[in-house]
């Protein structure tokens, strides 16, 4: 048994009628590693995670969790599994503590164990003072933290999180990531293997490895730095006024493949080896077109640039 890879998945398929929700996913995640499933709505992230926890039955493919074959030894595997579903799936009519207690006990924590462990984990996620509140009366962010606490109460070696920060305020998002990173403890022997799904590129950048998903497949897979390296030397950042005019002028340049607003600036993706030419002629064209240029320079590519590039290849 290969327990060096807490998560091993090969050539996974799942269809709903004519929709191939998951269409050939293979994946390995090591202890202490965060793997990001990155993609927009309908890419197949949730279906992939549901297959991993055994909530759905795959049409084809193999899944091994903590060394156990999910098709035959799901219950053994689940003893090591923590899962936070995309939709809040705890009991709204139970209190915070009752929820944790229930999920701790059904996972085999004894009467003596569950209370100290639950309080420890509630402290960890910052919900200790709300322990007697009904789960239905928590805010969105607190619900997600309770979900995380519940998924962690039995100290799982494998943690699967489905869009844990979608619909959560930015401060809580930060908190949430701090929690996950503290959990990981990559240096220890028994670090947790995490798979997290997200539509956000800034979150993807925090993962050790990511898979860009679309239509049930990985378009690209690897560490964020390696993925960004594929666009090295091809991204320009442009600042000036007015942005819409600058975008039109830049877009008309024969060597600019894509011009897109990133907040108050533009990112231009330039054809390979054409960086110098663009840097030379674009300021001239902007001034001729009546725009004002504040800054134009080469920047390191972000994951968002990579994602945009990928999306266009496929469309």
């Amino acid at each position, binding site marked *: 048994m290969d327990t060096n890879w807490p998560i091993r998945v090969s050539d996974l398929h799942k269809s709903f009628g004519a929709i191939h929700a998951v269409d050939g996913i293979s994946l390995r995640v090591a202890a202490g590693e965060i793997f990001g499933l990155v993609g927009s709505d309908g890419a197949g992230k949730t279906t992939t995670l549901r297959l991993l926890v055994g*909530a*759905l039955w795959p049409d084809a493919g193999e899944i091994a969790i903590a060394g156990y074959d999910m098709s035959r030894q799901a219950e053994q595997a689940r*003893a090591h599994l923590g899962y936070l*579903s995309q939709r809040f*799936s705890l009991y709204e009519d139970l209190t915070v503590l009752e929820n944790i207690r229930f999920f701790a*006990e*059904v996972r085999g924590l004894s009467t003596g164990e569950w209370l100290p462990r639950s309080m420890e984990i509630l402290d960890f996620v910052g919900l200790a003072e709300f322990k007697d509140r009904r789960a239905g009366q928590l805010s969105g962010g607190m619900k997600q933290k309770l979900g995380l606490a519940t998924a962690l109460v039995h100290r799982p070696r494998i943690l699967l999180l489905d869009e844990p920060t979608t619909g959560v305020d930015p401060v809580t998002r930060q908190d949430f990531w701090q929690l996950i990173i503290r959990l990981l403890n990559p240096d220890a022997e028994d670090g947790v293997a995490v798979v997290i799904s997200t539509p956000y590129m800034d979150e993807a950048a925090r993962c050790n490895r990511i898979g860009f998903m679309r239509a049930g497949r990985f378009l690209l897979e690897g560490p964020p730095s390696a993925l960004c390296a594929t666009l090295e030397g091809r991204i320009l950042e442009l600042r000036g006024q007015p942005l819409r005019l600058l975008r039109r002028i830049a877009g008309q340049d024969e060597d600019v493949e894509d011009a897109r607003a990133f907040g108050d600036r533009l990112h231009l993706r330039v054809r390979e080896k054409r960086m110098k030419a663009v840097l030379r002629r674009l300021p001239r064209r902007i001034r001729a077109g009546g725009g004002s240029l504040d800054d134009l320079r080469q920047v390191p590519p972000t994951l968002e640039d990579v994602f945009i590039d990928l999306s266009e290849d496929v469309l």
Partner: protein
Amino acid sequence: MLNSRLRSIIRKEFIQILRDPRTLAISLFIPIMQLFLLGYAATSDVRNIPMAVWDQNRTPASRALLDAFRAADYFRIAYDVGSEAELRTLIEMGRARVGLLIPADYDLRFLDGTAQVAMVLDGSDPTVGSTALSAAQLIGQAHATRILNERMQRAGATFSLQPPLEVRTQVWYNPDLVSAYFMIPGVIGMILYAITSMLTATAIVRERERGTIEQLIVTPIRSWELMVGKILPYVILALLDTLEVLAIGHWWFGVPVRGSLALLLALSGLLLLSGLGIGLYASTIANTQQEAMLISWMTLLPGIFLSGFFFPLEAMPKVLQWVSYAIPLRYYLIIIRAILLKGVGAAAIQNEIIALAVFGVAIMGAAALHFRKRLD
């Protein structure tokens, strides 16, 4: 047998039941309501039929006839009217179900033996109509016989007139033919069968509807533990309901408990298997609580009609009688009526017990095989 996972599920389920006033009300209150509704309102005893009388004669003779009607508690002389139109209006409005017309020459024709009275009936409710008709005929005949006898005695006859034949009926087990005796065992059967099945179906589907099933799936809870843990609290509620209805039936409606209570409870457990099995099966098909309700109700309703709950089995067409053999509630109703009213032991109802057990195990088994701890 109760491992810690099972215990946790059961405790969680009870907390949820107690925090959900609607479910609690349904499970504890509806049975009582049904009991009173069916024990009183839907009773098929015909008593105190309101009657309107147009007495054009108004003599001691006509009053004697009315007294005869009053004496039998089938009729209640509710209106004394002065015209046929008035009588018609009362019957049309439903105030009176029966009208009695006594002609002006009643006492005179009485003497020569040609007296006639007219009876008008509202036939829109056949049960009431036919009961009223036969009751009126009986009362009339008895009255006539008595008067004849009186007259013969006065004329010096030494014998009295007796009809050559009399059928004497003697009713066993339920001598007053109180329909509550018939209904209350039925209500208990229905609660065990229908209410528990709907409660379990919705309780399981609620997990799916609210998404909590997704978190349950990922725990090491076994499929059978989830099934048993979700069902057991409702079994306990159902047995509480049974005792509750039985107690009210006994102390309020006076239904006798002649047989063994322990035997009855044990056999109620057998019926529960069928009811819960249907609920469990419905929960595997339905996606929402409404759907679950609907599916179990659609399955249960024809069964309840064909079980002999409302109508005696013998009064149904042959085909439907055959169909009724496929309905577990049928056997239970025979069993519970036999135990409560006749006080029989297991031996007298062994065929029904076997049938009930076979259905229970089959339905529950089929549902359990269909029950999956998965989303698809």
